[in-house]
Structures are given as C-alpha cells and as structure tokens.
C-alpha cells in the first residue's frame, strides 16, 4: 500500500521539527540583529541567504524567529 502524500509530508515536517536544520545556523540574538537587513534584501530580490549565512537554517529551526520574519516581511509588503 502506498503512503498518502499528506502523511509523508506530516512525517517529514515532524522529523524536521525535532531534528532541526543540519546546516550552520545563527542564534536567536544574531537572527534578530540581522532580521531587518535580511527581509529588505529578500524583498529587493537580492540573494539574502548568501548575504546573511545561517539565517535560512535558523528560520527553519526556530518557529518563533520564523514568525518574526514572516511578520516583518508581510508588514513591509502591506503598505
């Protein structure tokens, strides 16, 4: 019996949530320090992940910082 895609996605998300990113990541403090720059770079179409190494991995690993990222991005694009 093949596994439903939604179940596979749920499993992948669970494993990602528990194990976090394998890559080098920023700390929460470094993330907050760089967040404004990172969001502006991302919105300008620049390669934000290259400019701010470790940010993407941290956003994958830290739900609270990922929320802060989405909030700032959405606020800036809501104007």
């Amino acid at each position: 019996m093949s596994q439903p895609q939604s179940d596979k996605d749920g499993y992948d998300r669970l494993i990602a949530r528990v194990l976090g990113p394998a890559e080098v990541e920023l700390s929460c403090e470094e993330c907050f320090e760089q967040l404004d720059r990172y969001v502006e770079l991302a919105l300008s179409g620049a390669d934000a992940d290259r400019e701010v190494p470790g940010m993407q991995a941290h956003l994958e690993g830290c739900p609270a910082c990922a929320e802060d990222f989405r909030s700032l991005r959405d606020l800036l694009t809501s104007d």
Partner: protein
Amino acid sequence: MTVPLETTAGTTATADEASRVWLRRLRADGPERDAAVAELHGLLLRAARFEIGRRRDSTPHLRGDRDDLAQQSADDALVAVLAKLDSFRGESRFTTWAYKFALLEAAVNVRRQAWQGREVPLEQDAWALLADHAAGPGRPAEEAELLRALAEEIEARLTPRQRKVLVAVTLDGVPIDVLAERLETTRGALYKTLHDARRKLRVALADRGFAVAPGSEAEL
C-alpha cells in the same frame, strides 16, 4: 542614495537619507525630538496592531483588550528602540529596523497572554507523542523504525533539561518564549539548549545507520 553614518562604536556604515533624518530628530532636544518620538510611537503602534491582528484567528480567546496589548507593545518597543538607537548601523531603513522591535514585543505579548493560566507540559514521554505517528496506517517500516529510534535516543542521550525543552517545543508546540518565561531563562538560551539536543540526536541516529546528517558542530 546612501551616505556614511558614524555609529558610536566607531564603525562606519551607510544609511539612507530618511533614516539619517530620523536619527537626527530623535537625537535633537525639545519639540523636535518630542515630535519625532510621537511619530515613531505611531509607527510602532501600527506594527503592533498589525501583528496582533494577524493572530486574531489563532487566538480567539485572548484575554484583555487587543488594542491595550498593542499600546503596551508599542510603548515597550519605543523604550527598546530609543535605548538601542546607537546600535542602528544603517543596514536597512530605520523604520524597518524599528518595526522589528514592535513586532517582537507584540508577538511575545500575544503568546504569553494566550498561554496565561495554561499548564505547560514539561514531563511528557516522547514516545507517547511519537507513537501515533509511528503506528499510522501505511507507515513505511523504515519511517516507523526511525521514529522509534528517535524516541529511544531522546530518552537515552539527552539531559533532563534538553529532553524537557525539545519535547515541549518540537512535539508539544509550546512557544519558546513562553517556555523561557516559565523556566526563568531567555529565548536565546533555550534555543541553544534545543540546538545542542538536536545535534546529539542527529549524531546518535547517524551512528545507528539512519540517513541523517550529523549536523553542524558549530556552537551557537
């Protein structure tokens, strides 16, 4: 156009003209500063209302008045922004930099309010939380095996505090700043604990032959 901005740290960065005007007005005396502070508070309040508004659906039972919470968040953010003014390096617009303080204060306040009076589960058995996933119909044997191994390693390899933090944040969905408040520590310190726990689990699973990258050895 960007022009050099001297920071108190002695470093030179650049800032756009509007950001430089903000800094000049906020560092001025008298009515000019008062007007700038009032204008800044208005921007921070807008950001706080935005944050609290976007969480309306996920916090239907939020206690207290949402606008009071926004005002409190904007007030706290204003204090933080003015205290950290010299750390603004001009790497983004000043308003973007300031907004993040209001969004953070509002998000933390909402999460704390939402969890006020709720018990934070701290002694959960990891296997109890993973078992349903492992036993799901159609679950491939290798996935069930990894989940069982994960539960075993959570019990075997982690310190009690690492286990408590990992299970609460990643399996029980407790917001990390709510947990930090309950454990009387900081979000950053808890995240480091979580990072170290994840690293141990990755290494343990890789040692058992699972296709899991051991993860970065870099310290946070």
